[in-house]
């Protein structure tokens, strides 16, 4: 479903992603972990076709996307729902219009159906009846859930969550992970989740990839990462530090 092959990306003369390769089969859920600034968000943007790599190939649903034009990428992006790290909610729209935006762009449903889907997804994320609120009236946690609702409302076959629980309280975080799990089961979605909440990730992810300084230092299953002999992986997994 998603194949990343030898992807390298430079910022200036510095490689921020170095020869990154992995494959996520259809229906699998990948946890992308690693310390801050290691290139996780950049990698998801490359998979979404928002950033072009300097080297390597990215295959999404059987199509190589790194050489596609913006118009050709539009068709690929319809298959992907993305939850952005910084919410990326449209501040010139209210909550309802933000969530309805992907459906309106798709153009398959009439306004009545769109409104009922928006209402339903808002109930699902525990924010019923806030359609007419403006984005600047929401708390960080509410914004995160609205972003989540917008990402999943079209039920795309591929979902990319960039830190879906950042800034949320433990109860809401747990609810979000339950939602992710439900979506995964309902739609056989292929997903990539970036998070530092390893407990939450363990509940939904079947595959793990760890990036350190732009390089993949681990790729494997949950069992394999638990038993990984690599020091940096073990330390990250156990939350240990070299410093005493």
């Amino acid at each position, binding site marked *: 479903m998603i194949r990343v092959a030898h992807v390298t990306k430079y910022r200036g003369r510095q490689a921020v992603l170095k020869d990154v390769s992995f494959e996520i089969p259809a229906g699998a859920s990948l946890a992308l972990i690693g310390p801050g600034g290691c290139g996780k968000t950049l990698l998801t943007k490359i998979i979404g076709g928002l950033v072009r790599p300097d080297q390597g190939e990215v295959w999404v649903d059987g199509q190589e996307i790194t050489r596609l034009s913006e118009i050709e990428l539009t068709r690929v992006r319809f298959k992907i729902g993305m939850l952005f790290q910084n919410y*990326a909610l449209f501040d010139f729209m209210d909550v309802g219009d933000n969530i309805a935006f992907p459906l309106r762009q798709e153009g398959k449903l009439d306004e009545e159906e769109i409104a009922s889907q928006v209402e339903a997804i808002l109930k699902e994320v525990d924010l019923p009846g806030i359609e007419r609120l403006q984005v600047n009236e929401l708390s960080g946690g509410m914004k995160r859930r609205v972003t989540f609702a917008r990402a999943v409302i079209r039920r795309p076959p591929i979902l990319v969550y960039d830190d879906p629980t950042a800034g949320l309280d433990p109860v809401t975080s747990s609810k979000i992970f339950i939602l992710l799990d439900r979506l995964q089961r309902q739609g056989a979605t292929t997903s990539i989740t970036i998070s530092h909440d390893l407990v939450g990730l363990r509940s939904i992810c079947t595959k793990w990839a760890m990036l350190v300084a732009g390089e993949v230092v681990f790729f494997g299953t949950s069992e394999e990462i638990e038993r990984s002999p690599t020091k940096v992986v073990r330390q990250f997994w156990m939350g240990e530090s070299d410093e005493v």
Partner: protein
Amino acid sequence: MTGVGADRSSGSTGSTGEGERADRPSRIADILASVGAPVFYVLSTVGDVFKTFGLAVYYTFRGKKRWDEVINQCYQIGNRSLVFITVVMAFLGMILIFQSGLQVKRITGDFSQMGAVYLPLLIRQFSPIIGALMIATRVGTGIAAEIGSMVVTEQVDALRMNATQPVKYLIVPRFIAGIFMTLVLVVYSTLVSFLAGMLTAHVYFEVPYDTFWDISLVRWADLLIGVTKTLCFGMAIPVVSGQAGLAAFGGSEGVGWATTAAVVNSSLAVIMLDFVVGGVGFMVFPTN
């Protein structure tokens, strides 16, 4: 190479002989880089502007338009610029007529042709360029700041992930509104400037209103050139400013750079287009 390396690593601070020769290629490379970087930046910006313009024209004629947003942008452009343009153009009209009136008084003392000469000048040159520069300053910054802040807060990425072309969604409504409202504002600014000039001529030089209000020297060519310039400026300002916004990066500092780039680049575009359209106009419709 080894010899040169040895010389350089020997740490001789006195820069003589081979040490100097070894430094030369890197100095040349540095000079080339320092010249090349701004040239590359200018060329890539010009390329991006033309690409954005091409896409804006393409999407203006293809696909569904956000007419509600076009109307909103018309209101924004008009509302943002009206007071500014009124004040600037009124003062410009007063200054131009007062200064030229002083010269006329000193040389011939005949004020009968003052309005007749001033109006074609306004229509053909002053109103389009001064009006467009005002719009570039007032509206261009707004466009760049809005789009730039959307870029740095990932809203433009969110648009793209929802299969929406940023140029189509954000620039095309401003492009259509820009063409229409620049024309409206330039016509308005011509009127304001002419009326302010007429009042000045009457108060300071006792020129009767009906003498000043003389359209006999206005040719169709003046109108055609004035309108062509205005339409070109109306297309250029939203495209150049919008492109500056889309090229924003980083955080609030990036938005600041984008707004500065929008004003500088739009103003340059207006002046260059004025030269090109004016030149073509003079070739097609030569003055006597």
